[in-house]
């Protein structure tokens, strides 16, 4: 299959059409973890997990910052698709599950140190279970 794809890509290139340079084969995965704002979490500019950060996570998601799933394995999975919707900037379905603990089925692509997750289905949604605002207040401004 991969050889067929390469031949097809080579044919398109010869025909003068552009194709992505490195379409890869994904790994089928199920990931369980918390839906997070990846910017605040990765950079540690504030405490970026749980109910304390929920409002900020909504701001960032609506503002177009990539949303991810912080897996129980500690890895950050950048979400590029949910169901049939390939919108991944301010995706309405993602906004509805921000900060929730979820289990999702999907395809995992790894490229240059980043894990990209294409979710086919949210198979379990526990809602927000990381309740930590009594410890950390409202991040980042306290209101």
């Amino acid at each position, binding site marked *: 299959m991969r050889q067929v794809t390469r031949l097809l890509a080579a044919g398109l290139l010869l025909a003068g059409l*552009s194709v*992505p*340079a*490195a*379409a*890869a084969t*994904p790994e089928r995965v199920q990931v369980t973890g918390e839906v997070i704002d*990846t*910017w605040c*979490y*990765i*950079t*540690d*500019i*504030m*405490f970026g997990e749980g*109910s*304390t950060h*929920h*409002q*900020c996570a*909504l*701001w*960032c998601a*609506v*503002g*177009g*910052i*990539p949303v991810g799933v912080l897996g129980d394995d500690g890895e*950050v999975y*950048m979400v*590029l*698709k949910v169901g049939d919707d*390939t*919108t*991944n*900037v*301010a995706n309405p379905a993602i*906004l509805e599950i*921000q*900060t*929730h603990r979820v289990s999702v089925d999907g395809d995992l*692509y790894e*490229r*240059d*140190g*980043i894990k*990209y997750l*294409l979710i086919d289905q949210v198979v379990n949604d526990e809602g*927000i279970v990381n*309740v930590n*605002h*009594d410890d*950390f*207040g*409202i*991040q*980042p*401004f*306290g209101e």
Partner: protein
Amino acid sequence: MKRALTLGALALAFFASQPAAQAAQGWGLPEEEEVRFDATVVDVLCELTSDCPDNCGNGTRQLGLLDGEGVLHFVHKNFTPFTGASWELQDFCGKMVTADGLFTTNKGYRIFVLQFVREGADGKWQRANRFTGQWAEKNGVAADSKEAKQWFRNDPEVQRLIDEDGVFGLGADADKAYFEANQ
């Protein structure tokens, strides 16, 4: 701890409001690198899967920067508070640009903050802060208004979500209990 984090966030908001100068400006991020490099603007999902809508999805797709060595850099952030970079790069879909900004590496991930961008080697520099103006136009307010500068507190979609589930996402009772205990 809480105070330090809040000061950090305020510092970022301050840096984001400073006058333009076409050179990366440090934000004090982990393992921060001030960089300028040439790259092609790509739709990340398209790059991975060959699912490629016209014009990189017209603002609906996360965009990346594919450098000359074939490395795909995931662009996380622009120059305004709480906003990403897709809208800043949208006009350059499929084009070669010079990107100026910051790499930060933490927790094993290296991501990019776009601060300035120009098309090609001699295009006009643009500051990566166009989100606010676009939000203002969409919401019928002036780009320099208080509402636009604090877009995140005034965005109708954010307000709808907060009205539904509260600032903690746990409902109105959780908000009430917190605010009563922390007056």
